[in-house]
């Protein structure tokens, strides 16, 4: 699919969609490329939205990944504020919300995900989720409002989004409570000792934690406050309630078009869907692994790598996505970086003292290194990304031996 009479439609102008569009162009696709986004902006970076965007005065253009004019120069037509309502894989067309019909020869679905909400709270000015630039701008305004009025804020969900917003809100001097339903913070991604370390960190910075607390409902109060009611009968009033309790992949368009979905658009390791000439990338996908298991990754890296794979698959240059997954989070200026997936690990080993000056937790499964969580230890993280899954990975004994220089393994991996 490289001829100049072809048209590839990319639905979703986030990190994955942008990457797909640019990869098509840089790999010899000469036809038309259209990038449709439902937000009113050119593609922008989401990671700063829970951090600097909330605490500093940032020029909004600094979030931009690519200006519309830069895309134009590459022959990529960006349509902002455009919602695709339906796709037809047989007619190879898509219906836009303005009623027009777009024909395509190849389709990239990069529709992202939508934050989960708790019922009954959609209409209150005090209750928010954080996904888009608009969400973040409203939250930033609420935080300022709460600071002026001396109102506390409540964050439901002790995952990355919740913890990062908590850290930002503390930086602004607000009274912050984090509510986590599970028995510890970041339960899905961190080992229990590191969860504890993060709990201690947040407490030491003045954030209150309610762990194992079940929210029963959120009740709007007046125009701009809300009460969080707990299952045990307690309740707390706040000027801002942020729910950061995970996302739902936007797979509705695909499902209605008969494309296989299972809590996300099912793709193989080259980002092909169940329908020829339709690929998918980023948060909207769930990837089927060679052993049949399915995995959902929500990260910038996944969006970028899958965007690239998806574009190449449409061009018949399949490039399986095999990189070690990685993630990061910034809280109170402390950098957490995760390489690999620690799920299923049976042994972990810490390198360095558990302090802000830097340490890492190495996770092993049946003596093989599968993941490394690094706190203020950039070098460990970069090494881990190189060696996980290769013959250069350290053994348990090497990691345990404080005198063994792990960085000698870099040359082995090169």
């Amino acid at each position: 699919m490289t001829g100049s009479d072809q048209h590839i439609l990319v639905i979703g102008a986030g990190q994955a969609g942008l990457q797909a569009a640019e990869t098509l162009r840089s790999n010899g696709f000469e036809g038309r490329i259209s990038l449709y986004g439902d937000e009113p902006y050119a593609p922008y970076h989401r990671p700063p939205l829970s951090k600097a965007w909330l605490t500093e005065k940032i020029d909004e253009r600094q979030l931009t990944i690519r200006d519309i004019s830069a895309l134009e120069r590459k022959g990529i037509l960006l349509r902002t504020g455009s919602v695709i309502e339906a796709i037809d894989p047989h007619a190879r067309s898509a219906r836009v919300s303005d009623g027009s019909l777009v024909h395509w020869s190849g389709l990239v679905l990069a529709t992202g995900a939508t934050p989960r909400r708790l019922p009954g709270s959609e209409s209150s000015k005090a209750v928010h989720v954080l996904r888009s630039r608009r969400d973040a701008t409203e939250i930033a305004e609420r935080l300022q409002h709460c600071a002026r009025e001396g109102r506390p804020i409540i964050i439901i969900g002790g995952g990355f989004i919740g913890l990062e917003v908590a850290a930002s809100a503390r930086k602004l001097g607000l009274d912050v409570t984090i509510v986590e339903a599970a028995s510890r913070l970041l339960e899905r991604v961190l080992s229990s000792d590191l969860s504890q370390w993060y709990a201690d960190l947040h407490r030491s910075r003045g954030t209150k934690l309610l762990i194992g607390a079940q929210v029963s409902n959120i009740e709007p109060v007046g125009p701009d406050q809300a009460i969080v009611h707990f299952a045990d009968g307690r309740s707390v009033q706040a000027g801002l309630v942020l729910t950061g309790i995970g996302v739902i992949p936007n797979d509705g368009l695909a499902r209605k078009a008969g494309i296989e979905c299972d809590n996300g658009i099912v793709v193989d390791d080259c980002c092909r869907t169940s329908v020829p000439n339709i690929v998918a990338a980023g948060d909207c996908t769930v990837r089927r692994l060679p052993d049949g298991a399915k995995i959902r990754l929500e990260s910038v890296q996944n969006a970028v790598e899958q965007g690239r794979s998806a574009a190449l698959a449409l061009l018949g240059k399949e490039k399986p996505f095999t990189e070690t997954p990685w993630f990061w989070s910034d809280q109170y200026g402390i950098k957490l970086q995760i390489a690999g997936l620690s799920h299923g690990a049976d042994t972990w080993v810490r390198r360095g003292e558990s302090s802000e000056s830097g340490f890492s937790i190495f996770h092993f499964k049946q003596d093989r290194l599968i993941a490394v969580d690094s706190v203020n230890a950039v070098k460990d993280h970069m090494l881990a990304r190189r060696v996980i899954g290769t013959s250069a990975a350290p053994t348990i004994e090497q990691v345990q031996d404080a005198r063994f220089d792990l960085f000698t393994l870099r040359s082995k991996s090169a």
Partner: protein
Amino acid sequence: MVAITYVEPSGSKVEINVKEGWNLMQAAVANGVEGIVAECGGSCVCATCHVYIDPERLAELPPPSEDELELLEDVKAERKPNSRLSCQVKANESLLGLIVTIPECQT
């Protein structure tokens, strides 16, 4: 505005007026300068916005942080004494006319 010249991997030169306070990565990627990936969007965690600074003017820049130095050890293209991560260099008047060369690969 600070005029900065970027030399793309192909050798093409692009001059961009960078707003003071913006970092060199933000201005480059927003304007579609080729060769900078900036996967992490400027959080200093990924080493994919590697550039070479005009050696004669390197000393005019604030020195790299420890994190940046550690990431520079892992850049894909050759690391040189004038290697920097462009997301960690903020534009100010003193950088007027700076030439920044982008290596041929980032990942």
